[in-house]
């Protein structure tokens, strides 16, 4: 088998495992985003207790490794199994990596995303807010028509980056949660292939290729959406969306 065939062969073998990574990302991004909005509103709340809770949550999940969070939540969920999940009859779902994985990712990414959104919230132009208030807008109205549109535009580049990081983070799930039957993700399968023929360069490079390609697609899609968000701006003023934005998680 020539090296070219070997690469094609690996690309075919790793196609299905890559779906698991995509699934983990797709299952956690939308819900994580909604959670993040909730956390941001909590953090911006005037009540010290509510904003304190949100701040502590964000700090804890941003301040500790996802690797540890995965281990910790798996063992916590496991120890609750007999007393809580079993009686409710949902133990088969709750402890399944395809459920638990995204759940922990959601906890994690909502903290990072909330930090980004909160930063954007603080940078919403004060003038526009004052204008809205002088128009006599209610608080909900203010949020929907002034704060939110500004926030999302400010936050979008950094949020894009967070989504790519989240996609990369899906690689950790099967290092920590039990693998069920043939449900294996990219890293898992690449590792398995490596153990058969010790060709670290081939298998890891092809896995890396998948990650690169999917990361690129995410940048592209989010970049298009950013263009849409900024459609009111002159084209020249829109910062070009680059594959490697400088924001980091």
């Amino acid at each position, binding site marked *: 088998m020539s090296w070219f065939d070997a690469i094609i062969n690996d690309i075919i073998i790793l196609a299905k495992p890559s779906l698991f990574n995509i699934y983990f990302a797709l299952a956690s991004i939308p819900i994580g985003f909604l959670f993040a909005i909730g956390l941001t509103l909590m953090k911006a709340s005037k009540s010290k207790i509510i904003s304190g809770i949100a701040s502590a949550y964000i*700090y*804890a999940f*941003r*301040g*500790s*490794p*996802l*690797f*540890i*969070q995965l*281990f*910790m939540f798996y*063992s*916590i969920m*496991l*120890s609750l199994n007999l007393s809580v999940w079993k009686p409710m009859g949902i133990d088969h779902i709750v402890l399944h990596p395809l459920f638990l994985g995204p759940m922990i990712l959601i906890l994690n990414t909502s903290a990072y995303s909330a930090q980004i959104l909160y930063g954007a919230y603080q940078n919403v132009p004060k003038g526009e807010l004052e204008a809205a208030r002088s128009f006599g807008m209610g608080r909900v109205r203010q949020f929907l028509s002034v704060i939110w549109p500004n926030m999302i535009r400010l936050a979008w580049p950094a949020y894009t980056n967070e989504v790519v990081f989240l996609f*990369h*983070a899906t*690689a*950790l799930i099967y*290092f920590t949660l039990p693998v069920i039957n043939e449900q294996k993700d990219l*890293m898992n399968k*690449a*590792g398995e292939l*490596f153990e058969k*023929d*010790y060709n*670290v*360069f081939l298998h*890891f490079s092809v*896995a*890396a290729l998948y*990650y*690169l390609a999917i*990361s*690129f697609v995410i940048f592209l899609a989010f970049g298009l959406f950013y263009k849409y968000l900024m459609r009111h701006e002159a084209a020249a003023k829109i910062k070009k969306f680059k*594959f*490697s934005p*400088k924001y*980091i*998680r």
Partner: protein
Amino acid sequence: MPDWLTNIIGQDLSDGLAYITNGKHMMWYASFRFTIFAGIFGALCALTFGLLGAIMLNSNFFLFRLIGAAYANVVRGVPDVLFFLFFPLAFEQGVEYFLAKSNCTADELAANIGNWPPCPDAQWFLGTNEYLILASVSLGIVYGAFCANVIHGAMKSVNKGQLEAAKAYGMKPMQVMLRVHIPQMWIYALPGLSNIWMLLVKATSLLSLLQIADIVLWADRLGAPNYLKQVGLVHPDWRWKYYLVLFLFYILVTFLSERAFAYLRKKTGKGMVDEAVL
């Protein structure tokens, strides 16, 4: 436990204290040294690779710029855990490839196709220390790519007048770089670098994937349920408690790091022309 201490704190607390200071727990505490080493040595490597990458990105020579950009972008486009595992394994195989060239006979090579290493004499034995160093370098390469970007940006932020003044003094390009450009860019790079340090610290939790008996592996072993008196204290599954300790440990490290960087920023900011960046 000494009797006087037991008298003060009571039997239960004393037993608990004895348990968490027994030999097995001591090994857990000792294993923090791997994490700390990987953090510090990894950060130094990351800074080195980051500086090299940034200098390449800054270079006037097209090829260097290309290499710099490829390094900074490709490494960041894949998960850190992939590169973290790939580099040590690839490095090991690379060394064994050269060992095989000099140590293996043709017959051995023919008999071992599809096997690794090609012959017993080409075996490079890696212990914990070797893996720890490779793991740190690996972290350095991954986060060096992030550093390269941050440092490159910081170098562009340095006041052009400063560089021109240096040139006017008759400094050679290398001297301008080393004496003026790099010393001045730190203040601009610090916020970004502090972010990368936080990422790197969190990545040190991956050491157990590279065959190192680190804090995560010991947490698993200590927390695993035990039903046999001969083995030690009989207890159910306590793993979540140990992971909770690690969870809190990393939060504490993050907190302390933030403090340290805030202090550093205040210090490096002294005497800067452009105090607006503070």
